[in-house]
């Protein structure tokens, strides 16, 4: 069945069974690499994307449920050549080891920064709690989110592209 969804501002008509998790539509039909399969159970956050501005686990969100809604993935925040603010902050902090969790981390963090101008460190930790990292990059991830919040708040200048 054909389902129309808007991903990073572009409309796509995809032919997929309606119960297909959004994750597989993004990865296999739209060839977007950002959202990752981690658990398929809503327990790890590797697949985090935004639907209408809210973070969701794309692995447990049927594609039919996002028909006509706005989906945003990490690809929508920036590119290698023009990274978005959070991506710049993660690069500046070198906040990745294997990096498999990081797209989901960035999308989770983006949802916080979209709503809260100046989050406290405790707010950042609490907000990031659903997302798992096995490499132990958490300390740098927290610093990167802090840095991005400061960049958006104007306390720290935005990095010029390296």
């Amino acid at each position: 069945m054909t389902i129309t969804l808007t991903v990073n501002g572009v409309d796509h008509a995809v032919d997929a069974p309606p119960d297909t998790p959004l994750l597989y539509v993004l990865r296999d039909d739209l060839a977007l690499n950002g959202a990752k399969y981690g658990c398929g159970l809503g327990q790890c956050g590797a697949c985090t994307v935004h639907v209408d501005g809210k973070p969701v686990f794309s692995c447990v969100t049927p594609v039919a449920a996002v028909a006509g809604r706005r989906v945003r993935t990490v690809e929508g925040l920036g590119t290698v050549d023009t990274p978005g603010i959070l991506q710049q902050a993660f690069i500046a902090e070198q906040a990745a080891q294997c990096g498999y969790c990081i797209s989901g981390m960035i999308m989770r963090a983006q949802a916080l920064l979209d709503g809260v101008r100046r989050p406290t460190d405790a707010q950042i930790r609490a907000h990031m709690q659903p997302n798992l990292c096995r490499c132990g990059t958490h300390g740098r991830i927290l610093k990167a989110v802090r840095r991005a919040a400061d960049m958006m708040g104007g306390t720290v200048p935005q990095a010029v592209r390296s």
Partner: protein
Amino acid sequence: MSMSPLDHAKAPSRRAFLGGGGALVVAFSLAPRALAQLAGGGEGGAGPAVIAPDLKGSLKNHPWLDAWIRVDGDGRVTVFTGKVELGQGIRTALIQVAAEELDLPPGAITLVTADTRRTPDEGLTAGSHSMQDSGTAILNAAANVRMLLTNAAAALWRVPAGGLATTGDGHVRGPDGRLAAYGDLAAGLSLHVAAVPDAPLRNPADYRTLGKPLPRVDIPAKLTGGAAYLHDMRLPGMLHARVVRGPAEGTRLVEPDIQAVEAMPGVVKVVRRGAFLAVVAERQWTAIQALRHLQRAAHARVTAPLPAGAATGAPLSGDAVEAVLNTLTPRDIAIEDTRTPTGPAVHTVQARYTRPWISHGSIGPSCALARFQDGEMTIWTHSQGTFDVARVVTELLGLPAEKVHAIHAEGAGCYGQNGADDVAADAAVIAFAVPGRPIRLQWMREQEFGWEPLGPGMVTRLAASLDADNRIVAWRHEVWSNPHNNRPVGAGGVLAGAEVDPPFAAPEGKPIPMPEGDGSRNSNPLYTFANTHVLYHFLKDMPVRVSALRSLGAHLNVFSIESMLDELAAAAGIDPLALRLAHMEDPRARDVMQAMAAGFDWAGRPRGDGRRGCGMAFARYKNLGAYCAVALEVEIDRETGRAWVRRAFAAVDCGQPANPDGVRNQIEGGLIQSLSWTGHEAMAFSPERRAAFDWSGYPILRFQDVPGTIDVRVVDRPGLPFLGTAEAAQGPTAAALANAIADATGVRLRDMPLAPDRLKAALGPV
């Protein structure tokens, strides 16, 4: 600078460069394969044969310069390594090494990682060996090439080579200022020559790239949805597969409903080979639904039952871990035995320490791509042993070795042998049955938890004595462990090998000899103690599937040694750091402990008061890798038993750091991961199988439990040999946590995990 997996798929093989105009490659330099059946490069196996013992690092196995470095006529440089990126930043570090000794900007270098047709076989990427093996080889190979280029310029200009210098941008400069480009010089030069041992190295004081915190080359693509992982490869005509197994190792499905699945729209094929079963579909979701349908079948245990003591359905107590290991017959291996006359013991402490079975817990379940076309099998794998994957598949499918090609592409962090090797073999079996179509196979979350080899459960028993002068006059350390290295080198080592008909026998477990050791790793203290007796009770029979987990036995052995030192210090009422320094002669070990003491302000630390306390620990990984000291300050919630690390400080000496920020990243990550293992984790077992299949059954540390601050001081050692860093924090962090909890509460926890319920129980009513 770095190749995406898709570039690898398109890239011509190294052989295709033969005869390429202007390139220095004359022939591909393969070392003899005499010993190549053994996994090497970091887990103690022999690895590739040593044919040039005078050379350093992996040049011993592959002395020809063109195995490592190619300089094209246009000056572009390609560097080849048999090691792979696991998220540890090795790609960037090796580029820095090559750039420094070639005296080129790092951006001028393309690095090709393990590929059975393009790179040297350097064995496994494991055991914190990559900088020692490959970094050292590339350092010296690059110095050789720079020397040859300089000599070529000297010959060209008829001047002595001593008056020439390289410029840092791909040129040699003559005494009169003349310049010659590397590419032009290379055109007249063959690199199919053996390295010499004494090619001059650049002076560390002049380093332009090495030792600098170069941003990692792989990170931008990983943050922006680039094709950074094997998982992101999409080959034309690719199909999606799922392998079908019982819920956990040792089980099999009973009569799964194959007919129904074959009739499902979108299912291309059901692959059976003996008891091996997989589904192949056009769409990934179809393959998953077919798997779910087949998994409705009943299952039965097909291997020996688990030891009764394991089957509690809950994380094992220390007694239960020991009860399981006690059912196995040990082979005793003496590790150290010294006798020195001493004064009488005044304080003696005896203790048992335990660790349960721990999962690697990779965030991304293992994945592989395979394609069988025109009689040739190509496998993309994130295994730590790319060359071993090719050997396994060669034997498993009975293919000629030259028809099997394995290429590394990145996966999620693995931290040892997770499902990577198994899934690569699975994908090859499936691809063999669907010729011409690339197969992408990813394991499901429950398969990763249920079937990957776990880090082995272990027990130690220590006894140690102090004399009246607070000298350690007796030290006894016994360790019981399964083998930690069951990495597959043939078909019997992977799951599919036991499922095909006829099956391949699983190889017998073997210990890794010291100095690297496996269950014995770091059981021999680096300290100078009188009357040291260390004994390894090696348990070859494995009731639970186990293999390498980051740091192997060092996690529990260092935990035990460094806990015992604090127990002794407490018995004698002396400072734990002072006790360690009094018994440590190695000056670099002392420096690292003192750097930790300064950075953490050990002398001014808050003293244990029931709620707050500090602990430290030290080890040199394997007694031959990096030195690492860790100090932690914990805050105890006596209501819940939660021990939160407010502040962590680590000092590390890894010789010349290739990239100090990369070193810090590894130490920070290892520290957090070890806090998770040590403080939270244990696989549970039901009577017939593992009992944790997802993150609710196997919780790991989340953001709320991450330390308040983590600082790492990298001790600079200009020009000293590289020492592997990636596993150095695991043991010291574990012991520092136990020591900090003991300092804060007076309660000594000796059985991992040092979990809140256990601490709360030990603390008693609030």
